[in-house]
């Protein structure tokens, strides 16, 4: 065992030999372009015709993204790639420059993202409401309360070990999770010290919205959901909306491009074009109608100027961006 070059050559030759000999079943990898849909190709990231969008599971789960993707890809030929991660993670992907655009719903995190110089050209697109869903029997008795009072009641009932009271949290730093945290804070509890370890009644799912709803349904627990995901899952759930009103439950979706000054590799042009498309009246109309057929009511309400610049929205929803 002395001559390394001979052995190395031998190794390489014989590996090829082995493949030639019998590994036909593993050796014939199909050509990457042979996938039936054109979108299957392994296009390099950052390329001109691929736009990568980090977004929230609540949008993905409603089916809105698939619809937007279908229409936009038909119109422009751009390959939209949605990565559903939850808002916190999506914004982190944007900070790292791993995506070109984020489509999220957590105003505070969004502002931070923009203030830190990573996000540019924010445009709010549409909104709906978060709802607190729970078992029809409403064991904590929160029906007709305002949202903050309702979560305070759930907290008290939970810490008193009231039978049947449980709350399932997303627990994944998503937009919905952030909204939930805001509610606890408004109710007067410190989230990290008082809520997270409050007892067995407080369950952290660590999953997307759909999974969390299914978990809450299995456990007959309360949970905070966006309206869209709840509606698209309603036929598989016994949970009912318990609290569906209140300005605290506003759920606003925004698109923010990743700053090419921070990450030169991102597809800034594509991001700008997509944002501009999202803010056209035709797109907003489409978003406003989405779900009507299937759920009997729209899942999202598009935002128009000047309404969007006023409270409670306080955001920009028009104006061409240039990337």
């Amino acid at each position, binding site marked *: 065992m002395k001559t390394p070059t001979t052995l190395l050559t*031998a190794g390489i030759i014989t590996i090829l030999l082995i493949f030639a000999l019998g590994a036909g079943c593993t050796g014939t990898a199909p050509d990457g372009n042979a*996938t039936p849909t054109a979108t299957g190709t392994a296009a390099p990231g950052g390329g001109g015709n691929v736009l990568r969008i980090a977004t929230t599971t609540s949008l993905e789960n409603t089916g809105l993204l698939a619809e937007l993707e279908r229409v936009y890809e038909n119109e422009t030929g751009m390959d939209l790639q949605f990565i559903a991660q939850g808002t916190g993670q999506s914004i982190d992907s944007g900070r790292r420059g791993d995506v070109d655009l984020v489509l999220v719903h957590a105003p505070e995190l969004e502002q931070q993202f923009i203030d830190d110089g990573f996000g540019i050209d924010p445009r709010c697109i549409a909104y709906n409401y978060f709802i607190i869903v729970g078992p029809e029997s409403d064991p904590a008795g929160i029906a007709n309360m305002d949202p903050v009072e309702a979560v305070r009641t759930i907290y008290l009932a939970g810490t008193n070990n009231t039978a049947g009271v449980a709350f399932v949290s997303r627990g994944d730093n998503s937009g919905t999770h952030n909204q939930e945290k805001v509610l606890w804070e408004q109710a007067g509890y410190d989230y990290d010290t008082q809520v997270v370890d409050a007892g067995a009644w407080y369950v952290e799912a660590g999953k997307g919205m759909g999974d969390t709803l299914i978990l809450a349904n299995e456990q007959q627990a309360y949970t905070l959901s966006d309206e869209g995901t709840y509606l698209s899952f309603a036929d598989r759930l016994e949970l009912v909306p318990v609290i569906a009103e209140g300005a605290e439950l506003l759920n606003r979706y925004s698109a923010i491009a990743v700053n090419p000054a921070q990450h030169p590799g991102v597809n800034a042009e594509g991001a700008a074009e997509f944002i501009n498309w999202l803010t056209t009246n035709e797109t907003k109309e489409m978003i406003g109608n989405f779900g009507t057929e299937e759920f009997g009511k729209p899942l999202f309400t598009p935002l128009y100027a000047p309404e969007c610049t006023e409270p409670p929205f306080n955001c920009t929803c028009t104006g061409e961006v240039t990337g």
Partner: protein
Amino acid sequence: MVNGNPIIEGLIEAIELIVTLNPQVVEITIRSLYISLTATFFAALIALPIGALIYFYDFRGKHAVVSTLQTLYALPTVIVGLVVFLMLSNIGPFGFLRLLYTPGGMIAAQTVLIIPLLMGLTVSALSGIDRDKRYTITALGASRLQTVITIIAEARFAVMAGVLLGFGRAIAEVGTVMIVGGNIRGATRVLTTAIALNTSMANYSLSIALGIILLAVALGVNIALSLVQRR
């Protein structure tokens, strides 16, 4: 969807999806096969020669290397996913390749995942050639190169079995492809991640259909494996 048992209905719809060659099902299946086969190919290209070198060379710490490889057989997929994610992310050393959230990145991750398995199994496949056979080869007048070739050719079925096992592990894993691929519809969504997603969306029929296909692939690998091992 509301009426009846969702599992039975899902199963029926799943079979429909497969029988009618639903484009989404076909696309995801082909992508899964493409990514895992390519990863297996590259892993074999790297692991087999190195495995052979480990076997044919006597060096200090050889035993430790082999045991380390065997430990890495069970390398948790999410750990590989995390590490490859950090490597490929824009903040990582290979960010410039822009491979994150692409099939290329998933291939890289699965390649990394199964290299130890292929390497270790190559070493044990070659070790399976007993001493008397090696003596016979030498006695028949084989040069060093001819010896190496004969031993590898003799172990080809065992090596192939290792490659098949590696492919089985690659196509069945969800941890790395979810983290590194991002489960992008039409780009990086593969059988396992599609099952995870569609289950979370309560889209059981599609999940079941993809699950049946994944099982069939695993079964196919096992059949191939037993055919190979019988030789």
